[in-house]
């Protein structure tokens, strides 16, 4: 790469900036052609496929699935490979489960009781982090008991832990390899993209087929989803070691191994810890979803509560998930800070004091464990102290009241928006001949992202046609784009305010964290009550999920606009609004484009959830494929189509981000790779 970078640095820059960029004309013409074609050829060449219809490709996929099913237990290779993986993963999961959740014998209490669990995790939080996160951990884990979901929460915790353990074991070596080897990185990146954007509904059933239902396959599904961040960020950390430092080490004659161990890994550690943090969060999200293949834990509570439309119970379980997410996030973050600081500021005295404190803590843990094994109240969380049921009932009342009050108003809102916005836009995409739509998308891709983005878009669109789901893909694309536009409008408004005020930031952030980690299933029921099953409901769910990320990125971008530029504007007498619109937003442009990119990907990851509440199209096809044998192939194809849409939108916006960055020099690297990753459902 050094070679091309060098060349680029020396290559003459073509002059840019005319009064109106050529691209604007191109897009305008393309849009005009599109509109005319829509009016003229309405409904011609639109490649439709009915919900229950399948293509030969889908049928062939069904046959593959059936073949696997029939040969799962007879094929030696299958049995050998899959069973050994399953047994290995299952053994680790069982170990944690026995420690934290329940043993198989007697009263089925966890080996170290609830008090022992709380004491132990608190001690670990103190050891790797600091006393603040230790207190948070103690409160959080006790809260699981108070909410009446201790056993389920511990299942979730045990499975998350197992999945993280394996993800690290797999991800670190791969990440290091990708970090030092460009080609490996090139091969891994698209695979990781695929793993992260393929809706889990698509592979949950086949996984259950291969690895049987239960904790082991839940963990394996989780690993698939959780391993990419740690690979990516390890590789990223190694690649971003400053060239000057690596070169200095080379000049001293380090061997490859020494270079890795003494220079690259220590310098990449921060990035690796961020990767670990994201892997933990992704694992937690996925363990919840793995409830669908009998992964035990909080996810099961949510899913069961939904069957009976019990919003309250779902919310209590969802809240427990949020609490666990916050605890895990804060502890891993504190651990990374601590690792960084301890080398610096530790003196022998401080070190000794800390060791004594931790040693004393360990004795407390031992006492708690002993107590848990001899007193029932310390072993099983006392049911009398649990308020989960009562809380759930209250929430049910509130939810019902809320729906009663607003449903008339919301219904008309939904109708108006659907008829004025969704239907025309969707019509434009679905009722125009597909060649015209492709052409328009290509013109936009070239203009916004460049040739490379356009080529990738073409390939993606052709593949979507190949898997037979053009019309569904266009419906999904329409909803996705609408949701993204609203998300961005919301994110701009809130993000700017947040970026300008630390206080607002502090107030809003926990809410944003919660909106991001609360499983979408939890708030779908009230929404269904308000809007009914419709594309609008799906769009609203997607916005709720995607907006926090976009808001955070924009807030960060605004907050990091150089203070000098803002001061300069104010010194010339700019009003707050002028400062925002003429200084802060233009300077945060690359963050805003990045937010659009992440917003799109997050919205897209909610397509399947949208399918559960009337979003239809690809999301529904995936859900149906998960449930019906006959539609398996179509579901898989729909999942792939979602991935293809994701890759197309991602590459176009990424290219736009890269371009922006070249135009507007940002003083600070935007956290492109470190941005939190979406949860696919």
């Amino acid at each position, binding site marked *: 790469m050094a070679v091309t970078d060098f060349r680029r640095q020396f290559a003459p820059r073509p002059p840019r900036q005319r009064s109106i960029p050529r691209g604007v004309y191109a897009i305008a013409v393309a849009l005009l052609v599109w509109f005319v074609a829509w009016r003229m050829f309405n409904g011609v060449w639109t490649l439709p496929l009915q919900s229950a219809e399948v293509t030969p490709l889908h049928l062939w996929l069904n046959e593959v699935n059936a073949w696997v099913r029939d040969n799962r237990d007879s094929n030696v290779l299958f049995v050998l490979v899959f069973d050994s993986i399953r047994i290995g993963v299952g053994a680790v999961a069982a170990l944690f489960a026995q420690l934290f959740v329940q043993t198989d014998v007697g009263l*089925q209490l966890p080996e170290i009781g609830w008090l022992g669990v709380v004491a132990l995790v608190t001690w670990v939080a103190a050891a790797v982090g600091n006393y603040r996160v230790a207190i948070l951990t103690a409160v959080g884990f006790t809260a699981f008991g108070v909410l009446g979901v201790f056993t389920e929460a511990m299942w979730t915790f045990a499975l998350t832990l197992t999945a993280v353990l394996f993800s690290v074991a797999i991800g670190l070596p791969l990440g290091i390899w990708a970090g030092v080897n460009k080609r490996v990185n090139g091969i891994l990146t698209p695979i990781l993209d695929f793993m992260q954007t393929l809706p889990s509904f698509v592979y949950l059933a086949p996984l259950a087929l291969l690895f049987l*239902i239960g904790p082991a396959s839940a963990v394996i599904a989780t690993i698939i989803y959780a391993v990419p961040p740690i690979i990516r960020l390890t590789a990223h950390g190694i690649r971003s070691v400053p060239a000057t430092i690596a070169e200095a080490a080379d000049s001293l004659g380090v061997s490859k191994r020494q270079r890795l161990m003494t220079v690259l890994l220590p310098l990449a550690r921060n990035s690796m810890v961020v990767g670990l943090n994201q892997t933990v969060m992704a694992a937690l999200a996925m363990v919840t979803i793995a409830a*669908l293949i009998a992964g035990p834990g909080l996810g099961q509570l949510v899913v*069961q509560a939904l069957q009976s439309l019990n919003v309250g119970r779902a919310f209590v379980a969802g809240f427990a998930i949020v609490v666990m997410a916050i605890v895990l996030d804060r502890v891993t973050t504190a651990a990374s800070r601590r690792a960084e600081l301890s080398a610096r500021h530790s003196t022998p005295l401080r070190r000794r004091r800390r*060791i004594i404190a931790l040693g004393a803590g360990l004795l407390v843990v031992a006492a708690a464990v002993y107590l848990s*094994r001899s007193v029932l109240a310390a072993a099983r969380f006392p049911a009398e102290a649990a308020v989960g049921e009562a809380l759930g009932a209250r929430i049910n009342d509130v939810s019902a009241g809320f729906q009663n009050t607003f449903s008339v108003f919301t219904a008309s809102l939904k109708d108006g928006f659907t008829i004025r916005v969704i239907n025309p836009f969707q019509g434009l995409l679905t009722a125009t001949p597909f060649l015209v739509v492709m052409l328009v998308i290509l013109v936009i891709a070239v203009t916004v992202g460049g040739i490379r983005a356009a080529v990738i878009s073409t390939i993606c669109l052709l593949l979507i046609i190949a898997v037979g789901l053009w019309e569904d893909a266009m419906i999904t694309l329409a909803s996705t784009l609408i949701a993204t536009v609203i998300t961005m409008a919301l994110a701009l408004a809130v993000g700017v305010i947040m970026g300008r005020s630390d206080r607002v930031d502090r107030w809003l952030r926990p809410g944003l964290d919660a909106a991001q980690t609360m499983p979408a299933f939890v708030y779908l029921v009230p929404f269904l009550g308000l809007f009914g099953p419709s594309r609008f409901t799906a769009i609203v769910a997607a916005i709720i999920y995607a907006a926090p990320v976009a808001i955070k990125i924009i807030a960060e971008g605004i907050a990091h606009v150089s203070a000098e530029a803002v001061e300069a504007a104010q010194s010339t007498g700019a009003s707050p609004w002028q400062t925002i619109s003429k200084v802060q937003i233009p300077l945060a442009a690359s963050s805003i484009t990045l937010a659009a990119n992440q917003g799109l990907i997050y919205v897209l990851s909610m397509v399947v959830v949208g399918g559960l509440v009337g979003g239809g199209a690809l999301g529904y096809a995936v*859900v149906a494929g998960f449930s019906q044998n006959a539609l398996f192939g179509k579901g898989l194809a729909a999942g792939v189509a979602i991935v293809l849409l994701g890759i197309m939108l991602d590459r176009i916006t990424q290219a736009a981000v890269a371009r922006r960055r070249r135009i507007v020099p940002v003083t600070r690297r935007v956290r492109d790779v470190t941005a939190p990753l979406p949860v696919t459902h």
Partner: protein
Amino acid sequence: MARTPLRRRYIAGVASVAAILLLATGCSSSLNTAAPAASGSAAKPCGTVNVAMNDWTGYTADAAVFSYVAEKKLGCTVKQSSINEQVAWQGFANGTVDVIIENWGHDDLAKTYIADQKVAVDAGPTGNVGQIGWYLPPWLAAAHPELLDWNNLNKYASQFATSESGAQGQLLDGDPSFVTNDAALVANLKLNFKVIYSGSETALIQAFRTAEKNKTWLIGYFYEPQWFISEVALKKVKLPAYTAGCDTDAAKVACDYPDYTLNKVMSAKLDKSGSPAAALVKKFNWTNDDQNLVAKYIATDKMSPEAAAQKWVDANATKVDAWLK
């Protein structure tokens, strides 16, 4: 090297945690082992029964009552695992599932696992009859009884229109796990309706609940037994009668759905084991009303499945005794 003490400290830390845990767990006898194995008495050895938990509430009701009886009366250890139907059938082959307590048809799966692989056996009907069809909220059925005949649907098509269906009437389909011929049916009966896929049972129920409460027009795909029927008594629309073979070609379907005799399926392993649980599976039998009642306890009254099962078992001792004979 400056980092050596740090590393040494980690090792020491991990070692001491492990030591303390071992000490604490090893030296004190756990409540687990101190406690009796299970309450209740069991004359015959029962062992562990793995019950697949499909995700609709009616199923939960069946499974809760079955599990309650098996645990309390037979001393079995019941393990429930929530999975969807397809995955549950796979479980027979690899021994992770012993019982599916309510099965709707699934001829293809039955062929694979009962006839071909012989890992499962049909354990007889549950006594419930499954009816799939098109349903109306009760207020609408009362206000426009003529709608209960499909011939009159077209007249009111525009009343059923929504933002999703445009000018046509909306026929709301739901749970993706249910096979539906509705698109073909609408076309073949020449109805001015459009099938909209709500995507989940939850969405469907919520839609019916809202329609009943707000007195809005709605027609949708539904089925019984279903707990929701006991909360809102949906009325079934009469479609052209089902005759054997009228649904063979899915594209040409123009008749109602058949009634399903719901049955139980259990693993061949359990069947051969001679466990009292196997006998219970075969004898388990009750009515749609029974199931709807327990399901209502769970769904509407927000009782836990165990509590709901206990309440029903206590009130229906004679039925339960018959299963245990």
